[in-house]
């Protein structure tokens, strides 16, 4: 039985990638907590995972001109997974970042990232056991 890393690692490698992208987006929200007119964004994890599972990383926009922005392999901008957050309480300067929500989401994301890492670690351990045959 040949060992295929993609099938052995399963969905967890996509999960780790999306979690790290989400962490980046949330960090960006926190950095802009005091920027006027900044709109907080977040990744809808379920639809991002669905797109990753179907092997489709972006909305698949065709570029017909050299100046068009291409959606790269990790292109999430064109994806429906990145969405603007609905503000609980609007502020006068048009900023929709709620630091408490962002902080909580970031922590949750960090724990889930570590959970995915643990799963991946377990997969690697299984592979090692299979290789050694002990």
């Amino acid at each position, binding site marked *: 039985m040949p060992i295929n890393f993609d099938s052995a690692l399963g969905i967890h490698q996509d999960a*780790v*990638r999306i979690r*790290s*992208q989400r*962490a*980046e*987006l*949330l*960090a*960006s929200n*926190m*950095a*802009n*907590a*005091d*920027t*006027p007119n*900044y709109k907080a*964004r977040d990744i809808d994890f379920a639809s991002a995972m669905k797109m990753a599972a179907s092997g489709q990383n*972006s909305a698949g926009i065709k570029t017909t001109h050299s100046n068009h*922005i*291409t*959606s*790269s*392999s*990790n*292109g*999430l*901008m*064109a*994806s429906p997974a*990145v969405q603007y957050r609905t503000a609980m309480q609007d502020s006068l300067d048009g900023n929709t970042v709620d*630091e408490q929500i962002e*902080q909580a989401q*970031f*922590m949750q994301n*960090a724990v889930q*990232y*570590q959970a995915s*890492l643990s799963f*991946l*670690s377990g997969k*690697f*351990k299984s592979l*090692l056991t299979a290789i050694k045959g002990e």
Partner: protein
Amino acid sequence: MSLFNIFDIAGSGMSAQSLRLNTTASNLANANSVSSSVDQTYRARSPVFSAVLDNAQQGYQQGGVKVNGIVESQAPVRAEYNPSHPMANADGYIFHSNVDSIAEMANMMSASRSYQNNVEIANTSKQLLLRTLQLGQ
């Protein structure tokens, strides 16, 4: 790797907030400054932040924050009739700065909390990266 970008993003947040703390400190230090003319009076300063969205080529936009500039408050300065003051002008007036100490204190609290948030984010990202390095061991 996205997690490495977080250090840049959180770092830009920290530097922006520390600049905000700097202007607040400057404003508070000059809260009681007086001068002989309206033009020379110290006016409260505040930084203007804007989001950096320059990595659109990476596919999805996210980024840090930058300071566009520092603006001076347009609030009127307070004139006081005090002929015995050494800074008094020919008419006997001195001009106080337009710093609102209470607003500056609130600003300072907000800046320091935001700074702490960014530090926390960078710390967590560092832990996640270190955990990732240990993957499979």
